[in-house]
Every structure is written in structure tokens, then in C-alpha cells.
């Protein structure tokens, strides 16, 4: 008698939460990497949830006039960055304030956006959906539009066991897709795994990288996840103060989230406002352009000197972070039914 009661109570309680149904989708990453920071227990990835999230990511239904999707600004072939546009533009070509960053290894991120305005991957998609310069719709409206389509309710049922669409489910499925965007197949990774080796040039570049860059662009994710001021001259037209807008602390003025350098070959233009088109310009900034200010990071207070040959070597190393498997992974591109 006691067994069925237990069972019942369990079923009864589980009805109170969004619980995934469907088959588990296991994420693969190198064993040497740290543990992801994302709490998968609250949103376990499933094959159905990821497929739904991918469909939403590529569907302009998320915008007010159904004109742009997430992929409008985040293209898979360019590590999900917005190439050719320094400042990403969205609906009605209103110019945004910032460059769309590359998207990968998000399960290891603690903060999102250049200033860390978003504190969790799940809620990140709310920002573009409600930002007037981006997709310009409200999540409540998006939920209504999705519920009214012939195909989405069944996809939500497959992922979450229920045809009723909610904001929580929309956000969690998009997050599931984003969590699968793992880049760990570059030449650098193969060298780490002992199945490939650097050229002499790359090796010297790696040495220079560890000397000058690794404090912030820390291996193996190539970011320490922190906010730093890397000494960029202030663009007075935008006057973007970065992290301090969120923390309301002047000690954070002009600090931005350290971006990963994985797939850096493809995620140009560079920096939060897309001011540099080429890695050459980036290196020139670090050797000649660093502006001293009260919040400049300690590790850039001593001038970095690199001769021309060293710059070439360092660039050669940065190119070993290109992951073609990631960039051309058919599982990440537009879903063809």
C-alpha cells in the first residue's frame, strides 16, 4: 500500500515545475577543462529541447515584425559574431551601441554581455527580444505568437511535456541550444591532447601569449571571465562606461568582460564597439595604444614590447584557436526540416 502512495506524491509534486521530457543530450568537452558554471540540474539538456532552441534561434518570429532572428546578428560561420558590422543593427536599422560578441562555451560563463548586465544564460535572450534597437518585442507577445502557430506547441510538448508555452520554456530551450555551442576542437586543443604539435613559430607565439595575454585571456577557455580595462582610448561619441553602468561603482569605469580568443580569426571586428578590423590593429593597441587611467588593469601597466617577428609569431598562435569543426558544425546552423 505504501508504494503507490509514494509514487503518486512524486508525480503530483513534479507537476509544479517545468520538467524536461525526451532523451538526454550529453555535452562533450575535454576532461581537463574546469566544470561548467551553468546549473544543468535546473535545465537538463535534451535532444528535443536543443532542437527547439535551435529552431527558435533561427526564427524571426521572435521579433516584432518577424524580420530578424538571433542569427541575424550571431552567425554560426563566424563563431556567432556579427561580422562586417562594428555596431550590430537590428529592427528598422536602429544602430545598437555595441558589437555582437562571438558565442561559444557559454556553459562556462558567469556574466553575459560586455558589461555583464545579464546574470544568467537563461535570461539573456530577454535582452535582445525587448531591446528597442534589437528585436523589439515583448516576451509575452512572443509566447502568444508561438502558441498560435501550428507547429510550435507540439515541439514544446516534446521538450517539456506540455503544449502550453511559457516564457520560462522559451528561454530555457534557447539556452539549451546555446549550451551545445562548445568549441574545443582547435589545433591548440589537439596539441593539448597530444595528437598534434605546434610549429616553431606557433610555439614562440604561445610563449609570448602566456607571458603577456594569459592573465586575462586565460587558458583553456581563453577568458578569466572577469571585467578588465584593457586601456582602449575612450570613444567620446559613445562614452560607454561598461561594467560601472551595472555595478554603479566608479572603480569599474571602462571595464568590459574579457572576451574569449577562441575562433578570433573569424569574430572580427574586435572589441566591445568593434573598433578594430584586424588582429594587427589589436596587437598594435597592446604594444603602443594602451591608455593609462585609474581603472587600467594592473597587468597592462607595464608596457608590452613585441618586435615585428614576435607579433607574427603571436598571431600564428592566435590562429591555432580556430576551430573549423565548430564553425562548420551542421548541428549549429540553420535547421532544415
Amino acid at each position: 500500500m505504501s508504494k503507490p502512495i509514494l509514487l503518486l506524491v512524486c508525480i503530483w509534486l513534479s507537476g509544479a515545475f517545468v520538467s524536461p521530457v525526451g532523451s538526454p543530450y550529453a555535452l562533450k568537452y575535454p576532461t581537463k577543462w574546469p566544470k561548467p558554471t551553468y546549473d544543468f540540474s535546473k535545465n537538463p539538456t535534451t535532444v528535443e529541447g536543443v532542437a527547439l532552441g535551435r529552431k527558435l534561434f533561427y526564427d524571426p518570429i521572435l521579433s516584432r515584425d518577424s524580420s530578424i532572428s538571433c542569427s541575424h546578428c550571431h552567425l554560426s560561420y563566424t563563431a556567432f559574431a556579427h561580422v562586417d558590422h562594428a555596431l550590430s543593427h537590428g529592427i528598422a536599422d536602429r544602430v545598437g551601441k555595441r558589437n555582437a560578441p562571438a558565442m561559444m562555451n557559454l556553459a562556462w560563463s558567469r556574466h553575459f554581455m560586455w558589461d555583464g548586465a545579464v546574470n544568467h544564460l537563461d535570461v539573456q535572450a530577454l535582452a535582445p527580444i525587448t531591446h528597442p534597437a534589437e528585436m523589439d518585442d515583448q516576451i509575452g507577445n512572443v509566447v502568444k505568437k508561438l502558441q498560435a502557430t501550428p507547429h510550435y506547441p507540439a515541439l514544446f510538448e516534446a521538450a517539456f511535456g506540455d503544449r502550453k508555452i511559457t516564457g520560462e520554456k522559451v528561454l530555457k530551450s534557447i539556452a539549451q541550444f546555446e549550451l551545445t555551442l562548445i568549441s574545443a576542437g582547435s589545433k591548440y586543443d589537439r596539441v593539448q591532447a597530444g595528437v598534434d604539435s605546434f610549429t616553431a613559430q606557433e610555439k614562440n607565439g604561445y610563449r609570448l601569449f602566456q607571458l603577456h595575454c594569459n592573465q586575462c585571456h586565460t587558458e583553456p577557455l581563453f577568458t578569466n571571465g572577469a571585467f578588465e580595462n584593457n586601456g582602449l582610448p575612450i570613444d567620446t561619441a559613445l562614452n560607454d562606461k561598461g561594467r560601472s553602468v551595472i555595478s554603479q561603482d566608479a572603480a569599474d569605469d571602462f571595464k568590459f568582460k574579457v572576451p574569449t580568443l577562441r575562433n578570433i580569426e573569424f569574430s572580427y571586428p574586435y572589441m566591445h564597439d568593434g573598433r578594430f578590423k584586424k588582429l594587427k590593429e589589436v596587437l598594435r593597441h597592446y604594444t603602443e595604444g594602451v591608455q593609462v587611467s585609474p581603472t587600467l588593469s594592473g597587468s597592462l601597466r607595464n608596457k608590452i614590447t613585441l618586435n615585428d617577428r614576435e607579433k607574427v609569431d603571436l598571431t600564428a598562435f592566435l590562429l591555432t584557436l580556430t576551430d573549423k569543426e565548430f564553425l562548420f558544425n551542421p548541428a549549429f546552423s540553420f535547421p532544415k526540416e
Partner: protein
Amino acid sequence: MKQTMLCILACVSIFQNLAASTDSVWLSIRLSYQNRTVQLDEPSDSLLLTTARFYLSAFEFYNNNRLVHQEQTYHLIDLEQPNTCVLKFNAPGMKGVDEIRFRLGVDSLANVSGALGGALDPTLGMYWAWNSGYINVKLEGQYSKSDARNQTFEFHLGGYLPPYPTLQYIQTKANHSGDHLLLNLELSNLIQQVNWKDTHHIMSPGAEAVRLSVILASSFSLSVISP
């Protein structure tokens, strides 16, 4: 088959048991201004309220200083929707309450836990998309002394990060105990203490959001509707 029968039987008996041993306390929520009930879109004196939505959470119920029930739940009170202004709490043996403790707003853990559902679903318009976190309190309307165009005001109070956390802990006691209580939020103090020259619109976390949240927290009172 036998199992299913057992299940159904068990189910019925659980519900019967629950029904027999569960007692309820009702909490009606009211907003007042100068001690008169405020209704949305109906001017009272110099104040017109067009939106009033706020989160109440983590209720604890006391009788004679004894904790009789507590719940880790979130309630979005919306004056636009009368059904959200009456809360019913069920618990076995909960009879007669003379004091409640609760929070005005959403705790910091929920603020950093990603997408949540129910009363915390981001579709409910109480979530800041561009600076993650819940809006604990939304009060919008018009006030004769507001220097804004059309004398409008908008107070979106929220923020969980130090140094400006807005979550408020509230403790309020009635004269005697009852099963149906009235929780009143009196707006006079708030209206009096706003700096109408330049802070008629608060849309992000900060010192002013904290100051107004503290004032609101001290403006709740509890009384008994029926013993």
C-alpha cells in the same frame, strides 16, 4: 491493473485526508492613500494610480508568537486583477493568525537563477531584460506635485546587488487573531517623501530605489476581517 486501482484508492484517500485536516487563512490585500482605499484609474485627491504590482514572498504566519505555517512561495499582487489580491494559505491545523512576516520583493537567489516559472515567469512584465533582475514593485500614475510632463510618475523598484539591495523584510501584527486578515499598504508616506522635482521616474536599481522600498516596507499594517 491492481496497482492502478490501488493508486486511485490511495489518491482519493489522500485528498480526503487533506480536506479533513487542512485549515485555511485568507489574506486580503488593499492599497490605501490617506486611509482611503485606492482603486486603479480612479483619482483620489491629488493621486491617480494606474499600475500597482508587487511581489510578496516567503510568508510566515504566527499565532501568539508561535509559528503556525510558512511557505517559500512568491505572489505577484496586481491591482488590475482582483483575484491576485486575495491569497489563500492552507495548512493542517492553521487556525487563527495574529501576525505575519513576509518579504516585499524577490530574494537574490531567485534573481540569479535564470528562467523561472509561475509568478516569476518573465512574461509577467516584472523582469528587467537589460539589467537582469526582478522588479519588486511597480507603481505608476499621476500626482499633482510631480514635475514630470503630465504629472506622471513611474517607480520600478528592484535590484538585488550590493550596495543597493531592495528586498524588504516585513513583520506586522494585528490586535487579535483571525482566519481572514487584511494586509493594508498605505501610500501616504511614500507620496510625501518622494522628491517630486526630479525623481518621479525610477527605472533601475540604486539608492533611491532602496530608499522608497524601505518607506513602503514600513507602510504595511495588518487587521482582522473575520475572527
